[in-house]
């Protein structure tokens, strides 16, 4: 029984040196077989793969390092044999492309969420803003505000005759008030003499 086992072990390890065989198999797992292209040289049953494993084995016995053997193979068969392609300008897209795409996706998500947040914020007005907008609409003598009054009147009549529904009506009113406030605020920002004059008159 024991001798049978030993025989089987020797059969699977032609050299009988299991450390070496382990190293051969580990390294040959990193190379693509050129005949069966989706198999590694370790897994492939192709003749060429067996020959290459033998080459690798002999070079290891001769004391070559894994890096030297890798160069030996890629010098003959190109970078194609390497399952782990070298990092070089030619393979930057391969190595870093997925991360670049992930970053681009995250950035797009950020922009989307930001714009959505902004739209959501626009949809509501605080009580203070509401009061302020109503006051401007009612009392301002600015001709631009008259345009807004016309637009409010239009929304109002659209709603009354049923061109827009309640929800749209309210949303449009909020949007309009917000635009009005923004316009008024941006006009306030630089304190021009004209602005002061208007204030003293009002």
């Amino acid at each position, binding site marked *: 029984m024991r001798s049978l086992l030993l025989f089987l072990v020797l059969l699977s390890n032609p050299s009988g040196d299991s450390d070496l065989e382990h190293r051969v198999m580990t390294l040959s797992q990193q190379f693509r077989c*050129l005949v069966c292209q989706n198999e590694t040289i370790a897994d492939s049953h192709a003749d060429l793969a067996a020959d290459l494993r033998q080459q690798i084995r002999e070079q290891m016995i001769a004391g070559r390092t894994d890096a030297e053997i890798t160069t030996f193979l890629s010098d003959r068969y190109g*970078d*194609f044999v390497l399952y782990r392609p070298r990092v070089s300008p030619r393979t930057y897209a391969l190595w870093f492309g997925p991360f670049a795409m992930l970053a681009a996706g995250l950035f797009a998500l950020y922009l989307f969420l930001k714009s959505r947040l902004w739209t959501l914020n626009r949809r509501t007005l605080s009580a203070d803003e509401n009061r302020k907008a109503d006051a401007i609409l009612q009392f301002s003598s600015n001709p631009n505000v008259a345009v807004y009054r016309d637009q409010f009147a239009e929304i109002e009549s659209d709603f009354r005759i049923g061109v827009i529904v309640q929800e749209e009506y309210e949303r449009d009113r909020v949007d309009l008030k917000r635009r009005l406030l923004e316009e008024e605020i941006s006009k306030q920002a630089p304190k021009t003499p004209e602005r002061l004059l208007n204030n003293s008159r009002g």
Partner: protein
Amino acid sequence: MKFAVPLVLFAALAGLLAAGLRRDPHLVPSPLIDKPAPAFHLARLDEPSRAFSPQELLGKVWLLNTWASWCVSCRQEHPLLMALSKAEVVPIYGLNYKDNRADALEWLSQMGNPYVLNVQDINGRVGIDYGVYGVPETYLIDKAGVIRYKQIGPLTLESLEKTILPIVGNLNDELAK
């Protein structure tokens, strides 16, 4: 307009993948192009006691054709090799890859011998040095002993007329370094 960006991105990706589908994954570009042809010293098929080395052909433009009697595609390209050798445009040397000497000689006597001479690469070692991964493969080597072109798979009339013979013409005009 809202759909333009995803549409363009999709079209670009589809185009890229379609281009990828058209490429033959079995054609692995050889890193040996424009590199010196690996040296070897192998026994000749006709007279195993004599050896041949590519060094002897410095100053000549020649083809190294890898073949084997067990190789089906080699049978397919054989008539072309015969015609090419008759035309005497470029000498053809054979690397008999992982073959049995008797079978190889039998093949040559039956199908004709287009080769100036053949060497035996019994264990495929020289084949590995040349990056052979499936016979037949044919190398075009210039006067300085540099590989200038590699045909993967059988030679075809098209590959000879459009690629190999024009390069041979140019190389013959070059002066040996």
